[in-house]
């Protein structure tokens, strides 16, 4: 677990930024399916500061991980060759589109068509960014990470965490009623379930594979055993997020909505952070790499 704690800034980055990105999936579906009046749109745009802030805080955490952040622009030199460069390019493209969308929406001059198009572009780029964040750890000298289970769990975390952030955003914007309409309710439940299944399924597949590996320094079974408690706690938090949010969209009373959606978002952050730490704790090299 010492390995995992050493990677705390990266764990924070890979928790918060994809969560913020995933929120745009629900927002994009909302803008495509629901009729929302101008005042509500203004409130939603204001509260969209929450996912935007999560993305920005995530990137700041990643920045603090670097020993020489002032050289960071150099990462673009490795596009196509280094998985880390690819991840950062995907992240930057997503972040720029997200900021364009949000700033334009905040000016109040965005047409419905542009809103729909840009929200979908942000959502798709957000999911692509989450996928590339997982891909960054697919290194052939680290077999416990070199599996598609990594990107799959990242997309899962982005979906379930993003849904929790979106529900909180809409609740605080006093627009949670929009989530209770037939199409939106089904969409939110599908996204929550898909996120939990992909996130926990991906991590479980990775843990199962790792437990059968070993090198001259550690056995995979010991690594998985060491991470087991935080995996269980993380999984409970993630399922708790799903339960709270399902309750929120299935007709929780107005007074309880803020508390439930806040609780769900906190559970999502804690749960995904624990599961990301578990991921880092299961680093097993083909040789002698010691984190």
């Amino acid at each position, binding site marked *: 677990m010492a390995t995992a704690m050493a990677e705390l800034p990266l764990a924070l980055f890979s928790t918060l930024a994809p969560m913020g990105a995933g929120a745009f999936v629900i927002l994009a579906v909302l803008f495509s399916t629901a009729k929302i009046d101008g005042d509500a749109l203004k409130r939603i745009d204001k509260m969209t500061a929450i996912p935007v802030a999560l993305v920005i805080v995530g990137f700041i955490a990643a920045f603090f991980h670097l*020993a020489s952040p002032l050289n960071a622009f150099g990462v673009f030199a490795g596009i196509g060759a*280094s998985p880390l460069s690819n991840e950062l390019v995907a992240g930057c493209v997503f972040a720029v589109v997200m900021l364009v969308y949000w700033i334009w929406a905040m000016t109040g001059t965005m047409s419905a068509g542009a809103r729909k198009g840009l929200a979908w572009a942000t959502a798709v780029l957000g999911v692509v960014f989450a996928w590339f964040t997982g891909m960054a750890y697919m290194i052939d000298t680290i077999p416990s990470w070199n599996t598609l289970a990594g990107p799959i769990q990242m997309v899962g975390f982005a979906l379930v965490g993003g849904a929790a952030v979106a529900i909180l955003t809409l609740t605080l914007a006093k627009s949670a009623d929009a989530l209770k309409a037939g199409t939106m309710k089904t969409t939110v439940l599908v996204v929550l379930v898909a996120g939990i299944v992909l996130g926990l399924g991906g991590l479980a597949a990775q843990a199962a594979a790792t437990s059968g590996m070993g090198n001259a320094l550690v056995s995979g079974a010991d690594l998985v055993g060491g991470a087991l408690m935080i995996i269980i706690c993380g999984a409970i938090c993630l399922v708790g997020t799903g339960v709270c949010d399902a309750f929120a969209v299935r007709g929780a009373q107005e007074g309880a909505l803020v508390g439930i959606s806040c609780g769900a978002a906190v559970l999502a952050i804690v749960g995904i952070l624990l599961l990301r730490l578990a991921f880092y704790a299961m680093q097993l090299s083909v040789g002698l790499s010691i984190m």
Partner: protein
Amino acid sequence: MTQQAFYFDGTRCTGCKTCVFACKDKNDLDVGVAYRKVYEVTGGETSKDDNGCATTSCYSYYTSVACNHCDDPACAKVCPTGAMHKDGDTGLVTVDADKCIGCGYCHMACPYNAPKVDREKGHSVKCDGCADLVAKGEKPSCVMACPARALDFGTADDMAKLGEQADSAPLPEKSYTKPNLYIKPSRDAKPAGDASAKVANPLEVK
């Protein structure tokens, strides 16, 4: 390009770690940073038969490892800025401190535990094959210091005449990075990837 390489004779190494300290001295390395490490590899078991006679398969041997300046270096392959690169003339893998962001990706990827991020210096650090000494026609400090003459350094072609490309435990299979480390293995050395051969001094080599 004339690729440079290390040679390690596992039949001569006594595990004294003079190579480790000669390297630390030459490169002025602080506590917690070592470019060369000596891995103590052990395994096997002792058992008694029905007559009470003890038999043992226990073994212990040393492997001295620094950067192997691989033909296909995992560190350079993942480096996002190109700071980690192979020198065009010598094939030595070195860090361009002005480009390095200190992300630690090279440290994660290298299966020889060679690069490490020095946060005080603000970039990755590792063995550069004592490029300054080599340019003067000398050998790296670890090689010159070894009292058992278990280490050597020279062109990959010359080193390949002394031993086989490193493919024994605790090292990874040579196919991953094609290391420029040639070894005459200890009699007890296990094949690369044999997880039954354990490193007995993990804290020392971290």
